[in-house]
């Protein structure tokens, strides 16, 4: 028999200032199946959780509904409380009456209370139909694959190897180091990048558990967390590696600003990386130079700040002055982003040593004109409010970092999303910064977003730490929101097979006929197959058509009976 308990949260004033909690509790008490309704000042506090657990035991509850904030942050907490009180955690239902009610209807207490009732009625209706679920388990292959041997990938691989995890590193070029190889010195601390790369590379070459695949690329990825099969194309040869986790460290490349500021037109116009290459040589001779920051970024189509270029411009301006103290260096910028004490110091030093800073705007962009052995830059200085002409030997464009060309393909192989600029998109910007929503696949470094070498190393190590969790546990649990096929209703039409973005469904023999079957470990619980099924033969656990239908019924019923 149903014994539902409803707990309505005040959240201090957050809910109670708009929603009449007493009224909602009284309303909930009369809903079908509800045997207990109570309230908490703060449900998520130790005290609140304690009182929920006590009520579960005292009232012998077998379903729990908490009406409070958002399941996106607090569901695990209440699920745990249910488990501790002896109820399967899938018998818990969350109703959001804070973000979706009290906070957005703060000035309409009556309407907010009415809506809270509807939402509670819907939650109770769904809870009535919840079923206990067992989370599946699947074994994890104790091996990792790192895609990309730039600084992020090297850091990740070294960290995995330190933990004794066998690691395959796939690199498309013929050497490790990635983009950093083209940079001699890393600012603001003036670290020799070659030393950094070599020291990380050594940790790979000295480990028998490391397998470095140069001139290689990912050809195919099959499987799911704990049980991936990665096909590596290495020349004419294909190598297959079984792995438990995959780290994406595919890095970035420098944007080539075709047609902008005379690039491709005048040999004196180069990119920042080309400047790095020239600065690494002993015969660097130019003396009058300007660097245009944000060349190709922070403008329509590529709105983002590429994060590393300001510091690189400051560092390179100082390196130019180190080589030639008489050089005249101008940095044209649209805001200097030199966050952190060390980078700010770099900015100060550059100013002190005579680097000239000119602020330009998008409305009046600097114009480049031809000149013998160089260019003339005509720039509108927003601070002076006048146009200046600069005679230059070299014009350097600090262009943004952009995703590598094959990131579309990498994303497709791994079934991981990218943002509108083509960078990979993590599961949660704050809570899960180095994980993809796809379990067992991780991301680090500039594959996600342009970051400095130091941040690449942090993220590489973070991704390795995350990737090592399933590997060291040896098994993974699968959240029970997966899809299930009722083989007797299934016509084996294959619509769900085509609909599934994860290739988790196949048609198999069932009794003397055929039916679809969901591979639970591969199913991510999106429910796409559910809506694709013409026979209602697939249900998603925790989101079944009966459960959602009951919510719709409850909404109609509550509205008809009048709550407002």
């Amino acid at each position, binding site marked *: 028999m149903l014994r539902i308990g409803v707990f309505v949260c005040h959240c201090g004033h957050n809910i109670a200032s708009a929603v009449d909690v007493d009224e909602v509790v009284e309303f909930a008490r009369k809903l079908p199946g509800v045997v207990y309704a109570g309230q908490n000042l703060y449900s998520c506090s130790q005290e609140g959780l304690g009182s929920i657990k006590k009520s579960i035991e005292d009232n012998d509850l077998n379903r729990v509904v908490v009406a409070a904030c*958002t*399941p*996106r942050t607090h569901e695990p907490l209440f699920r745990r409380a249910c488990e501790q009180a002896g109820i399967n955690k899938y018998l818990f239902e969350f109703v*959001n009456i*804070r*973000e*979706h*009610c009290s*906070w*957005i*209807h*703060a*000035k*309409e207490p009556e*309407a*907010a209370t*009415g*809506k809270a009732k*509807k*939402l509670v009625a*819907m939650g109770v209706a769904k809870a009535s139909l919840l079923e206990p679920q067992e989370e599946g388990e699947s074994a994890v292959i104790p091996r990792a694959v790192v895609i990309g041997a730039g600084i992020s990938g090297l850091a990740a691989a070294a960290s995995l190897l330190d933990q004794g995890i066998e690691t395959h590193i796939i690199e498309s070029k013929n050497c490790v180091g990635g983009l950093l190889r083209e940079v001699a010195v890393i600012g603001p601390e003036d670290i020799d990048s070659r030393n950094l790369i070599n020291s990380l590379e050594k940790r790979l070459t000295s480990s028998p558990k490391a397998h470095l695949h140069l001139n290689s690329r990912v050809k195919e990825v099959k499987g799911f967390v704990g049980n991936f099969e990665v096909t590596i194309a290495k020349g004419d040869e294909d190598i297959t590696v079984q792995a438990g986790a995959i780290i994406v460290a595919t890095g970035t490349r420098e944007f080539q600003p075709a047609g902008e500021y005379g690039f491709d037109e005048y040999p004196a116009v180069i990119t920042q990386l080309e400047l790095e290459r020239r600065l690494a040589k002993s015969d660097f001779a130019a003396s009058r130079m300007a660097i245009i920051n944000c060349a190709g970024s922070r403008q329509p189509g590529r709105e983002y700040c590429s994060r590393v270029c300001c510091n690189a411009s400051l560092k390179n301006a100082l390196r130019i002055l180190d080589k030639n103290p008489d050089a005249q260096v101008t940095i044209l910028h649209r805001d200097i982003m030199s966050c952190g004490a060390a980078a700010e110091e770099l900015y100060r030093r550059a100013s002190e040593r005579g680097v000239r800073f000119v602020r330009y705007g998008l409305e009046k962009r600097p114009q480049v004109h031809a000149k013998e052995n160089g260019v003339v830059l005509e720039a509108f200085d927003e601070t002076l409010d006048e146009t200046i002409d600069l005679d230059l030997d070299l014009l350097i464009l600090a262009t943004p970092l952009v995703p590598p060309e094959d990131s579309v393909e990498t994303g497709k192989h791994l*079934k*991981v*999303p*990218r*943002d*509108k600029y083509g960078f990979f*998109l993590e599961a949660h910007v704050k809570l899960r910064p180095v994980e993809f*929503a796809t379990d067992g696949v991780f991301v680090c470094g500039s594959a996600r977003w342009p970051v400095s070498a130091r941040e690449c190393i942090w993220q590489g190590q973070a991704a390795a730490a995350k990737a090592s969790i399933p590997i060291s546990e040896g098994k993974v649990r699968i959240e029970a*929101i997966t899809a299930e096929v009722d083989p007797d209703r299934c016509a084996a039409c294959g619509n769900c097979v085509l*609909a599934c*973005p*994860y290739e988790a469904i196949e048609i198999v023999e069932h009794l003397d006929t055929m039916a679809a079957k969901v591979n639970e470990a591969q199913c*991510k*619980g*999106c*429910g*796409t197959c*559910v*809506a*694709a099924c013409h026979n*209602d033969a697939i249900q*998603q656990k925790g*989101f079944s*058509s009966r459960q*959602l*239908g009951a*919510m*719709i*019924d409850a*909404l*109609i019923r509550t*509205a*008809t009976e009048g709550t*407002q």
Partner: protein
Amino acid sequence: MSEFNPNILAFCCNWCSYAGADLAGVNRLQMPPNVNVVRVMCSASVKPEYVFKAISQGIDGVLVLGCHIGDCHYLTGNHRTAKRIPLTAKILEKVGIDPRRVQLDWVSAAEGEKFQQVVTQFVDDIRSLGPNPMKEVRF
């Protein structure tokens, strides 16, 4: 006669639009209290049957909100939503229901303001359409 207060159902996907609705809350963006959100994992799991059921039983409007195309947490789920929901509205139109009662939109986890705008606009639209005629036909 009392003012028409539409009763609206919204399906929000867990990853983008539900989070966008959460963000609207966090930012205290005020909006009409007529929209009641049901959380689903992906907008592509919203069956036309849910919409038909809701409309046929008197819900005044159904809003389906998902991640922007290209941002789907499940890669391409919302491509299906993009085809399915307009088709669902078209089918309803064939049986005499104003298709504007069913609306699809994209709200990212960062678009609290867009959530507010979409909800406010939809409530306005439904208000101007008046009560769902199916309400009088009791099943």
